[in-house]
């Protein structure tokens, strides 16, 4: 001990004593803190308080205690290199100052703590209001109006008077159900003597199925829901709508909000047998997905980049929607404003590491039942076919012929025929377009020995818009119209990019089976005369199965398949689904000359139309074979049974699919990515949330935890009763939509960069009330709309109080412009054309053209199926309908907590001249034509009667220009477009 002490004293001996407070602290403050202090942190270094100074900066420690020589602080101030030397501005430090720093560091860099140092050691960000527990004690205040009135009184303000009943009923209708009130309902309400008339109206609207339709839109905005993938290959998601319907139904049934959230994050884990809970996970899949980066690209680097975007999107959406925290800033570095580390961000990735987006069965049990039944039938069918083949002989294989063979296995496996040149080729081809359709291409047989069989006569790209030639001077009718494009070719084997070789449980790539790949759009004609010549067969039967070789998770697609014997159509299956299989059993008479197979694109482009035939064979007809009578009877019976089985399989119910989460059994290990670069992985992280919200442990299991359990844990963490954010965020969202701005006016950002609540106690009171009600959204709606604050009139006296011109304190209600969808719905409602049909696949107000980047051309909405409520629109992510966009309908690439409200000349032009608006004005005029037309117009559109002056002006317009012009005018008026 003594020896050690002596050593220390000896080592410190040459060091002169330095008074930190007198010599160092003022020096740092004077020469360093300007760039390394509270205002600026060059190199992430601060020297204005002890904890920062010793933490160091971007390049590590600045002060190495006991060694000035090793301390960058000393190195930099003492450097001879002008570029290196600190401070960069002004005179260098004096020799004495430099010496003082050296001495101070060498002596152990003693830094006595003062108040500022102590304060700096406390992370103020942890004291941010939004992460403090929700208050429980509100003193005497009880109810929304107590809080509002108290705040107003503080500014010597008072609430405005209550709006009249006509204004209130219109406001309530648009707020709660997004549609204008019927004139009859308005009159009933206005004349209702019952003091509870308003409350009755609120209950009635909250019970309306339209309530869910209206409020689902707000939630879908937050989920950036769309019915297509987005990115450049913006393909369809035909089963995404089930999630949209789930949201509507959940809101209508007032599903407790915590359960609503849990189901959307982990419904498939919490209740795997409940189709609704499974569909709920469509939430996690709602955002964009990059087909090129995820599937198409050959580059692993691009795949990793695409996956990184995918996980970032899921994490961001979940945390932003539920907790109003913008976590994704921490992807590249620790969050700049909020105390969220980069590692915490990647721990959230680990929660979703085993989640991908894709089509899945919504109802597991039904799918299993159906698959079981299907498997049994398929097995029986396969047995019957084997028996038939045994009795009737194996026959000649058409795939083999396409490979250049005789039908008995002499063809080259994998070889195909080029549709443009007719060459037999082995290399795989891709996308063809600009091919001349309906042009017969004879087959070139280069390199084939003389006398090769040449059993395939022609190939072609069919298009039924004109008669399709299948052989010389032989055209056929009934082929569907096509896009005229195609992919790869015909093949003796799987096509280029074919993902599966299994149809109905039989793998046709297995021994004893064959595959004839036939991508849409393609046609092939076989020469029956030569086939008969080479085989000796006469009357034949053509048999086989046809289906898709596409991945089940690929975009949904339909295709058609047709068979012609000579010019006669012998088989056709139109718009076959990807999961369907068709069986072929066709008689081929002894005098038939050609057999033609045609695959076409089902009218939705050629994407995923990887059709193939399994065991496509020509075999001797039973009547031509010398069979014992018993065998013949058996063969007939077997054929009948096979036909019946095919029918039974075809009649099996379709199991509903949904675009939602698909779990991987072993989630990938997640590592922190330096600067957000997937190519620069760092330390491994385990599933977890962020520690800032302190209501529950942030760890959510280890890396051995199964995929689903991680999400379940996150869902529990988010909906934990003590989570300080989840309840505050949702009640604020409701408030935002009822008042036009939230108590916190950044509804998806409750972090340090967001707005402060105008009424913090009220926000907490609402959050507490929400918990008490069992997380009932409808309860909260009712509380809010019953308040006097909500019922105030929006019209204000000219002299606005200068101390709250933006109305944060709510001394009046805010007039609000209808959002794009509500405006469209209101127009349809008023014109009488609104189609009330609920749920199901979205209406498509566009023409779809298959292309590398699919093309969506919007059409004028002038048929009843397109007159449904806007929430049922099939939302195309990359190509928005211009009319709605002009009205601030958001881009579903983004999470949208609050709609922009802009006013532009293009908007005015769209409302004045857009075909939809003009047509609807016409229908509106038809609807109200007759007596009291003008009164009806005002009643339907404004929920009131015209004034004398308005009536005169309207009559004059109608007299000169007709009713339709009046209706057009009404649709453009502020009173129609705004809710007072």
């Amino acid at each position: 001990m003594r020896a050690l002490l002596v050593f220390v004293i000896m080592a410190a001996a040459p060091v002169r004593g330095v008074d930190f407070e007198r010599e160092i602290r003022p020096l740092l403050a004077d020469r360093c803190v300007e760039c390394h202090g509270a205002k600026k942190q060059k190199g992430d270094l601060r020297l204005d308080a002890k904890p920062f100074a010793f933490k160091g900066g971007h390049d590590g420690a600045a002060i190495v205690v006991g060694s000035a020589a090793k301390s960058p602080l000393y190195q930099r101030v003492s450097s001879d290199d002008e570029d290196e030397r600190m401070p960069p501005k002004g005179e260098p430090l004096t020799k004495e100052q430099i010496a003082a720093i050296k001495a101070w560091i060498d002596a152990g860099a003693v830094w006595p703590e003062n108040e500022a140092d102590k304060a700096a050691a406390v992370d103020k960000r942890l004291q941010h209001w939004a992460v403090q527990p929700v208050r429980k004690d509100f003193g005497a205040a009880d109810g929304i109006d107590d809080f509002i009135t108290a705040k107003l009184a503080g500014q010597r303000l008072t609430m405005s008077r209550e709006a009249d009943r006509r204004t209130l009923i219109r406001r309530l209708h648009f707020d709660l159900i997004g549609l204008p009130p019927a004139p009859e309902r308005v009159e009933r309400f206005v004349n209702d003597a019952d003091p509870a008339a308003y409350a009755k109206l609120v209950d009635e609207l909250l019970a309306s199925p339209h309530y869910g339709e209206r409020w689902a839109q707000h939630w879908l905005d937050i989920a950036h829901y769309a019915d297509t993938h987005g990115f450049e290959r913006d393909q369809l998601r035909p089963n995404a709508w089930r999630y949209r319907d789930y949201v509507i139904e959940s809101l209508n049934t007032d599903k407790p909000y915590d359960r609503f959230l849990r189901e959307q994050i982990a419904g498939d884990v919490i209740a795997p047998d409940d189709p609704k809970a499974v569909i709920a996970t469509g939430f996690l899949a709602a955002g964009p997905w990059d087909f090129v980066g995820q599937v198409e690209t050959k580059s692993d680097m691009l795949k990793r980049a695409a996956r990184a975007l995918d996980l970032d999107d899921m994490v961001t959406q979940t945390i932003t929607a539920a907790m109003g925290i913008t976590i994704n800033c921490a992807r590249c570095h620790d969050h700049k404003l909020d105390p969220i580390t980069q590692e915490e961000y990647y721990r959230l990735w680990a929660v979703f590491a085993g989640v991908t987006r894709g089509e899945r069965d919504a109802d597991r049990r039904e799918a299993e039942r159906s698959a079981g039944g299907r498997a049994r039938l398929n097995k029986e069918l396969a047995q019957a076919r084997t028996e038939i083949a045994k009795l009737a002989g194996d026959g000649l294989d058409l795939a083999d012929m396409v490979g250049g063979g005789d039908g008995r296995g002499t063809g080259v496996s994998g070889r195909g025929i080029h549709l443009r040149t007719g060459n037999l080729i082995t290399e795989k081809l891709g996308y063809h377009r600009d091919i001349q359709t309906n042009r017969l291409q004879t087959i070139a047989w280069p390199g084939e020995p003389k006398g090769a069989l040449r059993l395939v006569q022609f190939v072609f790209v069919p298009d039924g818009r004109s008669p399709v030639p299948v052989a010389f001077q032989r055209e056929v009718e009934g082929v569907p119209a096509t896009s005229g494009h195609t992919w790869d070719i015909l093949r003796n084997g799987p096509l280029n990019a074919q993902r599966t070789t299994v149809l109905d449980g039989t793998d046709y790539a297995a021994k004893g089976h064959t595959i004839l790949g036939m991508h849409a759009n393609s046609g092939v004609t076989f020469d029956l005369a030569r086939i008969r010549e080479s085989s000796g067969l006469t009357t034949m039967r053509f048999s086989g199965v046809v289906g898709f070789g596409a991945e089940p998770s690929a975009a949904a697609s339909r295709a058609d398949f047709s068979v012609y014997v000579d010019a006669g159509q012998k088989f056709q299956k139109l718009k076959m689904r990807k999961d369907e299989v068709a069986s072929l059993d066709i008689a081929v008479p002894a005098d038939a000359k050609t057999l033609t197979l045609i695959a076409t694109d089902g009218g939705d482009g050629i994407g995923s139309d990887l059709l193939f035939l399994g065991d496509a064979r020509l075999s001797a007809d039973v009547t031509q074979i010398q069979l014992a009578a018993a065998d013949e009877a058996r063969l007939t019976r077997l054929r009948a049974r096979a036909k019946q089985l095919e029918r039974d399989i075809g009649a099996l119910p379709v199991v509903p699919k949904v675009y939602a989460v698909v779990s991987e059994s072993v989630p990938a290990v997640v590592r922190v990515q330096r600067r957000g670069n997937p190519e620069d992985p760092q330390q491994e992280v385990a599933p977890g949330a962020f520690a800032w919200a302190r209501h529950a442990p942030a760890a959510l299991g280890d890396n051995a935890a199964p995929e689903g359990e991680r999400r379940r844990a996150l869902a529990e963490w988010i909906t934990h009763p003590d989570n300080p954010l989840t309840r505050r965020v949702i009640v604020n969202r409701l408030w935002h939509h009822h008042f036009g701005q939230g108590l916190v006016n950044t509804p998806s950002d409750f972090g340090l960069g967001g707005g402060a609540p105008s009424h913090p106690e009220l926000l907490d009171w609402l959050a507490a009330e929400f918990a008490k009600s069992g997380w009932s959204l409808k309860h909260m709606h009712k509380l809010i709309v019953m308040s006097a604050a909500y019922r105030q009139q929006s019209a204000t006296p000219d002299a606005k109080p200068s101390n709250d011109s933006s109305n944060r304190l709510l001394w009046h209600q805010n007039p609000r412009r209808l959002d794009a969808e509500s405006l469209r719905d209101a127009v349809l409602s008023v014109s009488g054309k609104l189609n009330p049909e609920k749920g199901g696949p979205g209406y498509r107000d566009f023409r779809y053209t298959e292309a590398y980047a699919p093309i969506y051309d919007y059409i004028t909405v002038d048929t009843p199926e397109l007159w449904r409520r806007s929430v049922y629109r099939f939302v195309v992510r990359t190509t928005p309908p211009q009319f709605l966009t002009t009205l601030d309908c958001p881009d579903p690439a983004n999470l949208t907590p609050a709609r922009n409200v802009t006013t532009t000349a293009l908007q005015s032009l769209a409302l004045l001249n857009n075909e939809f608006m003009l047509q609807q004005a016409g229908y509106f005029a038809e609807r109200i034509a007759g007596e009291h037309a003008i009164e009806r117009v005002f009643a339907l559109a404004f929920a009131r009667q015209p004034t004398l002056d308005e009536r005169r002006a309207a009559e004059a317009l109608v007299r000169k220009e007709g009713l339709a012009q009046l209706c057009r005018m009404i649709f453009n008026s502020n009173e129609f477009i705004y809710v007072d």
Partner: protein
Amino acid sequence: MNPNHLSHAGRWMLSRRDFLRWGGTGLSGVALSSLLANDKMPIRPPIDSAHPFAPRQPHFAPKAKRVLMIFCSGALSHVDTFDYKPELVKRHDTPMPGGGLVTFQGENGNLIKPLWEFKPRGQSGKMVSDLLPNLAELADEMCFIHSMTAKSNTHGPAENQMSTGFTLDGFPGAGCWATYALGSECADLPAFVAIPDPRGVPQVGSNHWNSAFLPAVFQGTAFNADKPIPHLARPDTISAKSDRATRDLINHLNERHLAEHPGDTQLAARIASYEMAARMQLAAPEVSDLASESPGTLSRYGADDTQNQTKAGFAKNCILARRLLERGVRFVQLFNGAYAMGEGVGNWDGHKKIADQYALHAPILDQPCAALLRDLRERGLLDDTLVAFVTEFGRMPTFQKGANGRDHNPAGFTVWLAGAGVKRGHSYGATDEFGYKATENVATIYDLHATILHLLGLDHERLSFYHNGIERRLTDVHGHVIHDVLT
């Protein structure tokens, strides 16, 4: 009352009252200097909701008042146009050293020399190929950046990046940012006009001009010489008299409604928007009507070419671009190439038969675009207009294996600037000896955008919009102004 704080709290526009109280016609001198004093603080332009396009002051004195961005969709090959590589000629049809690269469509074959001969041009002697002979003659006007790099080798994301700064969908176009910052100098026309190619729109379509999270008022308006602004014209079924009577009544009713809500700026703004619409209905057809252009002008641009309809169509778009710039439109984005027709057919995506494809496309671009540049110069517009000629990425110095075309190459490509504030006849940066990778003064699209904003008098690090908790910028958190290209 600092509008910065207001918009930080989620409000992008000031109420008229706040706007007037705070500054009047934009950033007042005092306010501006107080903002600029803090050199990190984001600047969100104060916008009068009733006049969102009113001209606003830039952050510092600008060199350019407006921008013309010419966008060649499909990736124009730099090694066949502006980036001369003698080594490529020497090593023609030999493997690229260290090659064996797998790029977007797969494996690459040998190095292939430029398919068009390079010659020295103008006083600068800049080597430019014969593919674009008319543009080549203007080499002395151009400031080439040969060391461009893009983040994606896929058209969609790369187009996104060149126009919006981000490879993802959902970000505002550069033109939206410019008009958000500066408003417009033209009261009767849209502030930002996108002019699609006569053949259609580029791969990511309206992403180029979408306002995304910026207010829709700053969205680009797409029209060209063939296709007018949607819904601009009064429908044929409605007579002028009838239309006027209807709109008078709208106004009457709206004024009445406003009287019940005195001082409501949004309602007042809607009334103003109908007035603006009426002015635009007069001004937009006028600007699109080329009848007042002389036959000489039409012929210089090639707009009278009866043999090549696409070229004539693009030439008309070029004239339209000039007319818009003349009238003070802030940002014009002129597209050459479209995607609906497929790879290489209507655009510069020459994978398979680049010689044939480019021989078709080049004449469509060359004469009209060169005439536009000359016309701008002759009318003095180049003095305060910045021209940026861009494409989403470059092409490989090799041919693809088994094909006669070049694959995508985001590692090095060329763009050029001309006009206000940029050096004439200057070249900046370079690719390696084959034109494969940018090696000298490597530039990013962020740098290019930072430079464009700088020329408009805007600090790219400070021009921002608060969205979902993030101060969004055109240049994300990157970008450096390329000072070497500035005069």
